[in-house]
Every structure is written in C-alpha cells, then in structure tokens.
C-alpha cells in the first residue's frame, strides 16, 4: 500500500502531502548545523496568526495531509496554541517540531486540547555537558528530558530527532537507549546536511568514514533489538553514498516549505540557488504558488535534466538527487547530485569528506563551532 495520487487534475503535477511551516527563525539554541538560512528572518516581518491560518486551510484544499510546525523554535511564537488549533481545524495532521525550550507543561496541555497529533523533540547528545555545548545553550538538555516525559505522560506519540556528526556519532547506541527510556515511539538519526550553518561548520562536523559505517552497523543491530517499541530511521549521509536520495521525494512533488515571512520554497535550502523566483503567501494563493511559481516549476519533473540524469533509468526514482548539493559541489543546480557515482563530480565529494576529516587522535578534542546567529568565536 502506498499513496497513489491518480486523481490530480494536472497530469504532471502531483498534490503535495506535507507542509513545513517555519513559524519563526527565533531560537534560544544555536546548533552549528541549523538548517535555517545564514540570514535569519526578522521577527517584525513574521506572518501573523490569521495569515498562517489561511495558509493551513489553503494547504488542506491543495491536498496537504500533514503540517510540521517548526522554526527556529516554534515555542517562541506566543500564538503557537492558536496556530496548532488552526492547523487542526483545517483538517491537517499536526506535528510540532521543537527543542522544548520555552514550552511549559501548561502550553503543552493546551496544544493537546486543540488537537496537536504528534511531538518531535530534538536532542543534541546523550549527556548534558556535551549536549549543551553543541546546542550553545546551558541547561537545555535537562529540560528536554523533562519535556519528553511530559509529552508521553500527556498521551502524545513522541519522536526523538538527533542530528549526528563527528562529536556525537559514537553515542548512537546510547541515543537509542535514551529514546526508548524516554518513551519515544520513533527515533530519527539524521546526519548533518551541509547547507547553511552546517556548511560553515563542515570541517568541525564531518564524521570519519569509520564512524559513519560503524553507526550504521550498530543501528541495524539495534533495530532488531528494539523492534517491539521503537522505530529507528537512519539514512546514509550523502558524502559517503553512491546513489543520490530522492531529495524532498522529487522537487515540487510532495512537499512545500513556508518561511517565517511567507516565501514558499520547494525545500528549506532552495534559497541558496541563485536566480530562482520565490512567491509569497502574502501575494498569491498556495495553489497558485504550487502550480505556477517559477521556483516550483524550475526543477519539477525531468525536463530540466542534463546527462547523466536525462537518460538514466532511475531519473523518476531519485529525480537527480539534491539541487542545492549539485550547486554547492558541482557548481550548477542542473547537474546531477554529486552523491551519485555517475556524476563527474562524485570523486570531488568524497575528497571533500576526506579533507574535512581529522586525525583520529584529534577526535577526542572538542570541535570549535561557528554557532548559528552568534559572532564567530
């Protein structure tokens, strides 16, 4: 059983399934791999409650099934409960993606009462000292653990998300045990994606090949061990892959992303691609943007492809991989994702991973991060 979208009105355009609502770029944490852009949207220009509510209803009319209330830290929005209510009332499966900081038990209970379906909590590592250093926020880890227990007590399904990189990838087995102990039903082990802040910190974050493959082996083993209580999702990081991922399930095919100020993007990093024209929910309906905006049309389908993608039999499987990564490493967003072994830039990507690796003896040294939103150390 899989979702077939055979009822769409325009044959080559699929209905979107997911909407990532970046409610704000404000965040008390300063994680060095943050997926927000280097230039953060100012609070004074954020969409108001009524506009978000309109966007949620337009999203449901367009076919979106799930909305992810994210940020920054969505708890920084004083109207978060109203926003969750609006998303639920629009008929959307409503997921909160949070760091826990700024959300007390009272607001969490209110979120449950307005119909929030699911909570995804980020943790940075297994113990407070290192976790707080990575997040750039003292006292965060302890609050996250308390929050996770409140989430489960209130009857929510809980997903733990842990971004892994050189400093914490060795702790994957302990992360799995921690997630299970907290009562999570699902754990996402996500490798840092090297766009934006993570690209700034690539040399401090990049794990060694040994670390990557050891973690994957461990997860395989742990999946079986925890099969009755925890779903573990983990993917091979692109820098060590030989096949590209179908980034976003294909450009402008399954999901869209609305920024705090209302620009609509095919993926959260799409603004790194020069020359794309993004439309705003302030000026256009979501349906118009999905069907007609230049940024969504740019890489939809397969017509834009060059070789080796153009004639590749997997072109409708991986859709050429990630456009932002093609730009960052191959120098042009129309090239094949260099994660693909058929890309002429594939060797360069491996070389970048190797260059970024440190001497094993140095692995024990604390990495120096350029923290998101703060002056370089």
């Amino acid at each position, binding site marked *: *059983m*899989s*979702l*077939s*979208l055979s*009822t769409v009105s325009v044959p080559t355009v699929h*209905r979107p*399934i997911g909407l990532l609502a970046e409610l704000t770029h404000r965040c008390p944490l300063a994680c060095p791999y943050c997926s927000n852009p280097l230039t953060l949207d100012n609070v004074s220009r954020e969409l108001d409650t009524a506009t978000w509510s309109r966007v949620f209803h337009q999203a*449901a*009319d*367009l*076919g979106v*099934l*799930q909305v992810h209330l994210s940020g920054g830290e969505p708890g920084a929005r004083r109207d978060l409960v109203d926003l969750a209510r609006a998303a639920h009332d629009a*008929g959307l*499966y409503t*997921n909160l993606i949070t760091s826990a900081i700024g959300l007390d038990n009272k607001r969490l209970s209110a979120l449950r009462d307005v119909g929030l*379906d*699911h909570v*995804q909590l980020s943790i940075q590592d297994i113990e407070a000292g290192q976790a707080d250093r990575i997040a750039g926020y003292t006292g965060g880890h302890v609050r996250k653990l308390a929050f996770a227990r409140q989430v489960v007590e209130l*009857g*929510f*399904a809980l*997903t733990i998300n842990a971004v892994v990189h050189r400093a914490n990838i060795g702790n994957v087995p302990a992360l799995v045990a921690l997630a299970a102990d907290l009562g999570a*039903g*699902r754990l996402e082990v996500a490798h840092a994606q090297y766009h934006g802040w993570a690209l700034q910190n690539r040399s401090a974050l990049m794990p060694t090949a040994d670390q990557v493959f050891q973690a994957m082996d461990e997860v395989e083993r742990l999946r079986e061990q925890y099969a009755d209580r925890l*779903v573990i*999702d983990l993917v091979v990081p692109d820098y060590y892959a030989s096949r590209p991922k179908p980034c976003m399930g294909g450009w402008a095919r399954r999901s869209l992303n609305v920024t705090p100020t209302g620009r609509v993007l095919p993926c959260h990093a799409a603004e790194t691609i020069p020359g794309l024209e993004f439309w705003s929910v302030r000026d256009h309906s979501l349906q118009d943007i999905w069907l007609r905006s230049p940024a969504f049309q740019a890489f939809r389908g397969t017509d834009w492809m060059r070789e080796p993608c153009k004639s590749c039999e997997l072109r409708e499987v991986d859709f050429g991989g990630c456009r932002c990564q093609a730009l960052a490493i191959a120098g042009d967003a129309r090239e094949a994702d260099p994660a693909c072994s058929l890309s002429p830039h594939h060797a360069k990507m491996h070389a970048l991973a190797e260059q970024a690796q440190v001497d094993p003896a140095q692995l024990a040294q604390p990495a120096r991060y350029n923290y998101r939103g703060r002056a370089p150390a």
Partner: protein
Amino acid sequence: MAEIGSASGEIRPRLAPGVRLHFDKTREAWILLGPERVIEMEGPSHEILQRCDGTHTTAQIVDELATLYNADRATIEGDVLALLADLATKRFLVR
C-alpha cells in the same frame, strides 16, 4: 499473549497514539496518518480501521464486516486478520 491479527476473540485493537484515520476530500480517499507516515486505505480497509477503537474485539469487527458486505465470514476474517497484523507490525495499531 495473543498478537493483534490472531483469531483470538479477546483482542480489542485500537489506533496507536499519534495515528488517525482521515478522509481526504481532495483525493476522495481514506488515509491513515501517523508520524512521517501516510498510507492510503484501499477498498473496505477504512471500515475495519474505523472499528479499531479499543471497544470492538477482532471477532466483532469480522462479524460486522461480514454483515456489512454480505460476504462469507471466513473470507472476511482472513482479510481482516491480515490487515490488522500488517498494521500492528508497522506500529499503527496497539491493543
């Protein structure tokens, strides 16, 4: 203890926390939604899922479906048990 999807009459399956059944007007389809998961319900699947409410036993679900579709109970039972077992493995259902 009997598993969900076994023929035991005592099990009362229900949707797991964070899982709900949704009718999507744009696709005119019943869809099971969970964390990062979206499954379109084919044929009478939604009729089975609607009865996974923690009060119906598996046997009652089979009885009601057999009546609803005026079909052979043994055939319906096979279909129901297979669906319940599959969705329990994927952690969409709990008991």
